[in-house]
């Protein structure tokens, strides 16, 4: 703490001689106002709504107690957590070696192109991408045609409208996302770590397990957390690919609005979903902090 140091570079704001006090507020107020009016206020409205009865109004906790007493609502949360966990683990396991290959085996000048190619399908419409998987997985789709055509199976397999289809669609999306985050993390590692490990006599496997992997763990955790958040809150992929064989939480929320117009219950379920994400965030943040210390 050097008091003189504060004076070397004056804070940006004080460098503006003619700025009246009203100007900075005039600049930031529209954005803040928009966020308060169309993000915070709706959230408060949703909180109130979740405490009212669907018919007749009046305050009640029944929307929340329904979640804990109705086994099919519970089951949706269990399904969501299971699918999200499978997707996160499979995506990390698939993306890590891929990101490593892009970062280590591909010549430097091709890396940008290789990465751009890897995330190109990222930019197809999300709805369309799930539908495309249907073309691949359907009863008479590409995979089943290939399997029956080559005589490997006699009857087409039931691939669409299953949990497998939902997981495949999700993994497809998150492999691209995780490849980006892990690749960035691997590129940030200084090559001197690897040299130092080699100088100390570690083989490539030991270097990877004891040096590279622990150093990229924070990046993996950030990517995995992002996967968790986006996966558990997504409606499109499970609705298109999973069919209605098992419901996930977002599907349950949308069902309350679409079929029954039950905003209070939908609000309560959304808030429970958000609470789960917040718990995951707190768990993750704490874990990350311990890792860094």
């Amino acid at each position: 703490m050097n008091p003189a140091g504060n004076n070397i570079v004056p804070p940006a704001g004080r460098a503006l001689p003619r700025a009246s006090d009203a100007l900075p507020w005039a600049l930031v107020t529209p954005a803040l106002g928009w966020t308060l009016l169309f993000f915070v206020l709706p959230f408060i409205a949703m909180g109130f709504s979740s405490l009212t009865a669907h018919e007749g109004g009046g305050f009640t906790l029944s929307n929340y107690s329904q979640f804990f007493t109705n086994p099919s609502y519970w089951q949706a949360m269990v399904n969501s957590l299971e699918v999200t966990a499978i997707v996160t683990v499979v995506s990390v396991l698939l993306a890590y070696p891929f990101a490593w290959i892009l970062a280590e085996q591909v010549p430097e000048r091709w890396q940008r192109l290789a990465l751009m190619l890897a995330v190109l399908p990222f930019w197809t419409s999300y709805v369309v991408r799930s539908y495309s998987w249907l073309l691949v997985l359907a009863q008479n789709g590409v995979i089943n045609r290939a399997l029956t055509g080559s005589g490997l199976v006699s009857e087409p397999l039931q691939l669409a409208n299953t949990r497998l289809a939902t997981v495949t669609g999700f993994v497809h999306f998150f492999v691209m996302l995780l490849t980006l985050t892990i690749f960035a993390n691997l590129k940030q590692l200084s090559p001197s770590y690897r040299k130092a490990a080699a100088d100390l006599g570690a083989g490539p496997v030991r270097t990877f397990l004891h040096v590279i992997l622990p150093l990229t763990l924070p990046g993996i955790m950030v990517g995995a957390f992002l996967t968790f958040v986006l996966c558990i809150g997504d409606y499109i992929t499970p609705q298109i690919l999973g069919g209605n064989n098992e419901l996930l939480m977002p599907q349950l929320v949308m069902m309350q609005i679409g079929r029954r117009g039950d905003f209070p219950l939908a609000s309560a379920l959304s808030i429970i979903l958000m609470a789960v994400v917040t718990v995951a965030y707190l768990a993750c943040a704490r874990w990350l902090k311990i890792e860094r210390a």
Partner: protein
Amino acid sequence: MRQIVRAASLVYALAVYGFIFLPVVVLVLFSLQATSFPIPPFTGPSLRWYEVVLSDTRLTSALVNSLLVASISSATAVTLGFLSAWGFARFVLPGSSLLRGLITLPLTVSYLIIGMGLLVLFNWAGVPKSLLAAGIGHVVINLPLCFAIIYSQMGDHQINIERAARDLGAPEWKVLLLITVPVMAPAIFAGFFLSMTFSWDEFVISFLLTRFDTTLPVEIWNLLRSGLNPKTNAVGSLVFAVSIVLVVLFELTLLRRRRT
């Protein structure tokens, strides 16, 4: 050993590329299908499904709606994002980091919940479902992105240019319009094009907040009820093409920024 690793890497990388590209290739390939089912064997090539899509007024008006909502909401998001980024980067405000946190907060909440909240609020306030309502939601999700991109690009060298302009007698609005906006143009365009891609592709908020006039992802969703259909493949391929154009524009503006 090295050779084995290289060979295994190549096989693995090709397998992952195959997995990533499989659905997109199938989509585009069967959009060129001549017959009525987008399934093997491939009977194309034919552009007839593109003709069907482009003469379908529901789809073309949804496409126009999507472009309108995307461009207007992105312009709004980038304007609000730019003004606030300038305000936070150039002035000392009380509670500045807290307020910046508030602006970026919507990034951490799923689109479904943002849409739900707006639906409940608009329902109470008696605001009818419309493209405007959906557009408001798109600004909510894109404002934090625009703000973050532009705020991160507000460097110190720009302060000096602005100071020089002030010393030469320029009023604040002239500094903003004639100095800061041109200097920040690459970041502003990058934010704009990125929001365009997100708004153009956004489904859940539009689905919840529009009724009769709606956006293309919602129309595509409605098409899916008719099962596998080459028309859906064709419209999906068109959406892909537009997204790629937007991403390339985003990349180009970002690259321009890096060179300066």
